[in-house]
């Protein structure tokens, strides 16, 4: 088991005892009727194994992106626990990564996980060159030899099929699809065990989408990391993932093999989602 979430919830607002029971799938709402807090993620438990690719689908506002941000620690978790393989306390027991001291959390983010955002402005620092952005991740993982950093940056820059001569250019000077590929190079440069992708190809034209999906798939096959892919595009989910979970109003409504979910959806909401596919 690489990653395990147990009863994870995220409440935006003051929060009260009614928040979780009064919202979610059954209640068919995400806003608590008592305190009017927004329950973005409601009591979600899931497991990701090594090399597994998990897709997360759902309509906008269903809590897909928030779930990723909770795993990547971009947002504090309101309730629940998250375990990551190999993260242990002093006694050698698996420990909740949410309770780690800041330095170890940073270590986890730099060494073990990487996130690719829909908007390159979130994932890349536009004041640094493309190579500098990749170097930032390698430096964050503790490497302090220039030659090694430069070689690694060039290696991952090559992996995303970019000419080496452009490595010192700034992200502004690249197209949207190229910026997305630089994000991928940056994310992979620390050899993470878990890659989180938040709508990685949304907003790109279809031919570029296809190339980026193929690239991600090839790199995953080669390097063997696990992935969690958030997308509202069932085509992307179908193309990339082995397992899929469906979210609605912050709750997990269906979970299973991707093929099974797309061919034979059980939950009425999933049926609606699949039947609405263009």
């Amino acid at each position, binding site marked *: 088991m690489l990653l395990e979430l147990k009863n994870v919830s995220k409440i935006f607002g003051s929060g009260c005892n009614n928040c979780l029971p009064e919202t979610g799938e059954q209640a068919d709402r995400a806003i608590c009727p008592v305190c009017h807090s927004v329950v973005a993620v409601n009591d979600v438990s899931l497991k990701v194994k090594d090399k597994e690719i998990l897709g997360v689908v759902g309509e906008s506002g269903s809590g897909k992106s928030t779930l990723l941000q909770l795993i990547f620690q971009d947002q504090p978790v309101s309730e629940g626990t998250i375990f990551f393989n190999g993260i242990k306390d002093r006694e050698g027991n698996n420990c909740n990564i949410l309770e780690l001291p*800041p*330095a170890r959390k*940073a270590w986890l983010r730099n060494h073990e996980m990487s996130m690719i955002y829909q908007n390159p402005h979130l994932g890349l*620092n536009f*004041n*640094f*060159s493309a*190579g*500098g*952005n990749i*170097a*930032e991740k390698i*430096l*964050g993982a503790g490497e*302090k*030899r*220039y*030659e*090694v*950093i*430069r070689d690694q940056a060039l290696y991952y820059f090559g992996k995303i099929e970019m000419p080496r001569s452009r*490595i*010192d250019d700034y992200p502004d000077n690249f197209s949207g699809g190229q910026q997305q590929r630089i994000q991928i190079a940056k994310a992979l440069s620390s050899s993470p065990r878990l890659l989180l992708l938040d709508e990685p190809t949304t907003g790109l034209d279809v031919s570029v989408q296809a190339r980026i999906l193929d690239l991600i798939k090839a790199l995953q096959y080669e390097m063997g990391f696990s992935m969690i892919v958030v997308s509202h595009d069932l085509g992307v989910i179908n193309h990339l993932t082995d397992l899929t979970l469906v979210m609605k109003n912050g709750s997990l409504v269906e979970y299973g093999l991707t093929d099974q979910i797309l061919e034979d959806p059980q939950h009425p909401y999933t049926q609606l989602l699949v039947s609405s596919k263009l």
Partner: protein
Amino acid sequence: MTTDNITFGFFDEDAKKEIRRAMLKAVALPGYIVPFASREMPIARGWGTGGLQVTLSLITDKDQLKIIDQGCDGSVNAVNIRDFIVSVTGVEETTATPDATIIQTRHRVPEYPLSENQTLVYQVPYPEVLTTVEPDTARQKEMHANVDYAKLWVLLYEDTAQFGDSRISSRYPVVVNNHYVMDPSPIPKFDIPKLSDNPALQIFGAGREKRIYAIPPYTDVKPLKFSDREFAIEDFSGKACERCGSEDVFLDEVHLDDGVHFFCSDTYHCDTHLKEDRGAA
């Protein structure tokens, strides 16, 4: 100027106490930036008020005071600050580096090696080394606490990739005691090696930014540098001071109509070297 009604050291005792507390904290946490209540001074902010406040709260009537501006005892800024401190304390002034117990400096470390009974007070314009890469002060504090200096290293990486070495000429970032990365004030790279393992106490005061930090005696200070790259200081090989003939010191480059001339930046060093030469002749 009459000084009959002014307390010793210009400040009242409470003010001195507050500044000394900030300094004690700074010494206890080498390289950590401590905020303090920077006072209005009779000179404008940005003209050495940080160093001045540190000096005034440290000084006793037994101290010997030396003030330099870019190594020079005679520049207007140095003379004014020295005259002011002497007028409110009556301490003895000196230009001799080995005789001074407190040396307040702007942008240089004296050439003459310092000793344990000396304190070097720096005037600092920009105390926070992370400002160039992270404007948010709350984030800066987190980054210092987590020893997260990846963004500073990226600047170094980019310079090395594009120009072969760092382009920073002064204010070169240093790692103090293997933890905090610190702005050493705009001293040249030439002076960076002198910060490390120095027997003297080094205190940095930024009056406009209201910050104090310190390097205690014999503290390890390293320039921020990739482990497979050498830290290079200014190269003055083949050049010597035209006045005293010194080599191996930091030289000022003076552009005149008849070309470029080089002189010692440290005037005390220049004067003593000149005397030694004449004595020998």
